[in-house]
């Protein structure tokens, strides 16, 4: 039996290492007996699980598969609802059946809410209008493996950014597949991951290196520089030179930081990302694109207008390929070859696209800046806004020159600073929501946990793969005015805590907890509402509405056990087996609410705790 202190530490650890934990998971980690036991043993177990099933990724454990199933289900409904003959020639139906971003969001929420829920969530097979049979949840979505992997994939998605606030909103499947790369590569090498990311069509569309041609001075066409710039600034070396042994930003004699690259370097690197095309044409309604054959090869100079060589007309799953019409720039590329630079990157002439990208990615990850730059970003995502120099260095050394993510993550979560009293961060809004929903085992009758997520996005300005730009949701050095700034600390998540979102957050928590029918107000859609194809039914489906499972808590919702109830909820949500506002909560319930409505008692305890900074600020207590 774990001690209170062990449970408290496990609870804090799971805020860092999962998308949210219920009481059972906290106990399981605290009581873990494998390997080194406890947190460390559990962590090693998590790091040992792969997503491969005899060499290939287990399709039951992919985001793509779940999103695809959800989309196919809606697509079938849309076709049936319109009596379409399948040609897509009826007005509206072609669009209605495209894989819009909300299918991606539904699939992400479904997997996020299902994970590690084997005790409370069971599969419910269903058959759609076409007679196709689906599993609502499968064993790989439910088991206790890869809880950490899921959290790391999310952290990586805020570093290697693509966003559905772009034309990617039309491609749920591509985004799901991109997320699978992060999920699959979460414990691998950063070089392998970055190469896959660089060649993924969603990144090619988002940062526009897809369909990029080499220099053609006669026609005033020059390579697109977007990806070349961002892969350096955001995905590897960052803007300023770092001391190779300490990771601290270097200043020159005048106290200025030294830029890592200049515009010439961008132009050189842009040559690498040329001659890139999508794998093939691919579209759900082929008759709508003039003159192309499904799955036929794309050539950059094949005469088909360029707007047919991107979403939604192309294969967004298979890696991008080299064009066969000599559009890749095969000249020698030299980066950082100017005065004052000790690290240079040269890519020899004659390489093909794959060889050049491999060389560029390996060279950029091996740049002495990268290990510190990515180590700090990962620590800030998981543990603390202001990591010590020693903490960053310890993680960077594990990360090394090829980017060993497994070792780096293990170090992040086991370092002394991971759970000391100075490490702290504001939980990003999305994690406050996932933690609450997972903590109290949300469930529905249909077992389709297909949350659309729009409300989280619009009210809290935070959602998965949904930042306003490639720069993610927050500036890395953001500090709100006042005490935090005066302490020379940064707190990037506070950029999402303003006069609109702070009240929006409290209101959302109220809505989640106190909706009239005691069901959760997050929209879950499972049916197309004929004739408004996009307007999926979201209010009429009692089976789909989510509800918390407060069974264990309601058993304590009486005047005798109220202290135990407050402590239990506080442990789950704040990592401390007591609440700073226990007196306030008790007084409110005892004098104003009473114990007649047990749900109200539980909801009140939760609501008041999630309103406190004890919940919103993640730290050892």
């Amino acid at each position: 039996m774990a001690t209170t202190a062990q449970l408290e530490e496990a609870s804090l650890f799971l805020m860092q290492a999962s998308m949210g934990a219920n009481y059972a998971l906290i106990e399981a980690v605290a009581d873990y007996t494998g390997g080194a036991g406890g947190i460390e043993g559990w962590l090693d177990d998590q790091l040992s699980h792969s997503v491969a099933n005899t060499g290939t990724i287990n399709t039951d454990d992919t985001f793509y598969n779940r999103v695809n199933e959800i989309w196919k289900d809606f697509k079938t409904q849309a076709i049936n609802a319109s009596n379409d003959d399948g040609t897509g020639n009826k007005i509206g139906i072609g669009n209605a059946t495209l894989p819009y971003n909300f299918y991606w969001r539904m699939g992400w929420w479904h997997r996020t809410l299902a994970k590690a829920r084997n005790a409370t969530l069971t599969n419910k097979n269903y058959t759609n209008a076409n007679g196709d049979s689906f599993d609502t949840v499968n064993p790989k979505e439910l088991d206790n493996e890869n809880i950490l992997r899921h959290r790391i994939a999310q952290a990586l998605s805020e570093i290697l950014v693509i966003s559905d606030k772009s034309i990617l909103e039309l491609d749920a499947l591509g985004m799901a597949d991109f997320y699978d790369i992060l999920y699959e590569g979460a414990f691998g090498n950063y070089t392998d991951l970055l190469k896959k990311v660089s060649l993924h069509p969603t990144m090619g569309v988002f940062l526009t290196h897809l369909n990029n041609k080499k220099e053609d001075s006669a026609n005033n066409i020059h390579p697109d520089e977007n990806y070349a710039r961002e892969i350096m600034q955001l995905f590897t070396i960052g803007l300023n030179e770092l001391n190779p042994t300490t990771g601290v930003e270097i200043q020159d004699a005048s106290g200025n930081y030294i830029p890592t690259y200049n515009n010439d370097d961008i132009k050189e690197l842009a040559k690498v990302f040329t001659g890139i095309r999508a794998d093939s044409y691919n579209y759900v309604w082929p008759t709508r694109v003039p003159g192309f054959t499904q799955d036929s090869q794309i050539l950059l100079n094949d005469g088909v207008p360029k707007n047919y060589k991107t979403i939604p007309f192309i294969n967004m799953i298979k890696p991008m390929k080299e064009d066969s019409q000599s559009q890749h720039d095969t000249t020698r590329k030299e980066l950082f070859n100017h005065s004052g630079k000790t690290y240079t990157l040269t890519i020899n002439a004659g390489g093909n696209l794959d060889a050049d990208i491999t060389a560029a990615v390996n060279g950029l990850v091996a740049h002495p800046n990268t290990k510190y730059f990515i180590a700090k970003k990962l620590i800030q995502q998981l543990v603390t806004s202001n990591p010590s120099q020693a903490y960053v260095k310890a993680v960077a050394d594990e990360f090394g020159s090829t980017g060993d993510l497994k070792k780096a993550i293990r170090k992040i979560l086991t370092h002394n600073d991971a759970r000391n009293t100075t490490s702290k961060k504001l939980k990003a809004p999305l994690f406050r929501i996932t933690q609450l929903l997972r903590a109290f085992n949300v469930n529905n009758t249909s077992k389709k946990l297909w949350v659309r997520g729009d409300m989280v996005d619009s009210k809290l300005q935070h959602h998965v793969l949904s930042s306003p730009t490639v720069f993610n949701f927050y500036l890395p050095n953001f500090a709100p005015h006042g005490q935090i700034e005066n302490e020379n600390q940064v707190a990037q998540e506070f950029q999402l805590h303003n006069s609109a979102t702070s009240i929006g957050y409290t209101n959302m928590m109220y809505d989640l907890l106190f909706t009239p029918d005691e069901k959760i107000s997050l929209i879950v859609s499972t049916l197309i509402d004929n004739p408004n194809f996009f307007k999926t039914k979201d209010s009429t489906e009692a089976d789909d509405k989510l509800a918390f499972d407060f069974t264990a808590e309601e058993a304590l919702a009486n005047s005798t056990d109220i202290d135990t109830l407050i402590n239990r909820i506080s442990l789950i949500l704040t990592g401390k087996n007591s609440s700073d506002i226990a007196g306030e909560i008790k007084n409110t319930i005892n004098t104003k609410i009473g114990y007649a409505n047990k749900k109200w008692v539980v909801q009140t305890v939760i609501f008041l705790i999630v309103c406190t900074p004890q919940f919103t600020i993640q730290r050892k207590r």
Partner: protein
Amino acid sequence: MKNLLSRRSFIKLSFFATLALAGCGGSTGSSKKKDTSSDDTTKSTTNPNINKDKALVYLILNGGNDSFNMLVPTNTSSFSQYETTRSNLKLNKADLKPLNFTDKNSKTFGLHPSMPKTATLFNNKKLAFIANTGPLIEKTTKAKYLANNVAIPLGLMSHADQVKHWQTLDASKRTNIGLFGRFADTFQKDKDDSQISMNLSLSGTNILQNGEKSTEYSITKDGSIGLKVKETITASSHPTYTPAQRTGLQNLNNALLGAFNNILDKSYSDSFEKTFIDIEKNAQSHHEIFKAKTASINPNTFVDYSAKTTHTNAQNSNATTKYSSTDKNISEQFKMIAKAIKASDSLNMKKQTFFINYFGWDHHDELTNNQSRMLSVVDDALDGFQKALNQLGIADKVITVVGSDFGRTLTSNGNGTDHGWGGNMIVMGNDVKGGKIYGEYPSLALNSDLDIGGGVLIPTTSNDEVFAELAYWFGIEKNKLNEYIPNIKNFYDLNSQDLPIGFI
């Protein structure tokens, strides 16, 4: 290091540049006008605008508007140059909306086909353009740029940096203190916590409105945001409830609110915890004030997107693009701004700034169709906003300015354009001397004296000059402009009788 200058050599150079440029005055060209509107008073040291009510509205087209397709030269020789350079991105001359203006180089102009209302505002002298403007640290020529002997903005042609320079007006630094933040540091210097910030944002936290001491107040198109638990439960708010259920819920909410307020009133020693609570506390009290003061102001809805779904490119009737929810919100955000300006007295805001960050302009790809749609949104929004201001009788104290990270490359990357430097911006308002294009509209020939490669144009008017003029209009003393816009002296003599550009 061909194009970048080390920081140390910049410091040395900018010292000489300052000496060399002192007294040179403002922008190039004959469009520079004397500040006749306040001729008598600019001679004295006191700015007559200091105590006047002003509202400055800033719309950023985030991502980089391709503004050489927004404002297009139409005289024969310039248009033929335009056609050659822009190749597959060129607009048809016949579709452009004519502007009644000829510049000193005998150039005539037309606006993008999606902007007929903006053309009318221009021709009615309510609106002007400033040509080829962008961040600069000092006056820059191609020769100096290529010879590395001029200080150039940090992170030239990167979104994050350029859009920051358009908010900080300090292109030599990476800072998160914005110009409007500095305004608020001045005009709300000793602001009590109960007073709402004069910097109102429709786009959340931003650099522009962030000062040393001040921050923005975030609102939405629907106004400020208040606590749900505080709302009164009525038969109309909860129609399915029995009276007893309503009473029960009201009692519950009252209890929750009481406890919530006590949580807010606790003292927190940890900086993160304290900051979290302080922001929420202020948000709630400010909401009560803002809501009360704006509730009864209801201008007409001049622009309604509720029934619009797609935009058709005027150049190509087969090319339709869908309005995004972002597009649809822009005009509603402007309407909320009009309400807040009307309420400025009761909100105790003599000076107000407003910020809308309109995302989605990074048209590396599919430029023509997307830009056509989004410029039509801007066109509707500006026209609707000016109408609302007129209806409310507050148009005299408002200037609206539309800027963007950068202009885009003149050359095509096949289907779009990449990050450029100089671009064309819009200023609108009764105090603007409209119907003119200020600054110097550049040659669009490739390899011109301004083209540093691929049609990236060196700005001929710094955005420092544009915002210095707006700052003066807003009420900043002329001899203190450099405290707000650090490099302004490189472009403008603070002792000059004239304003930097003369569009006001």
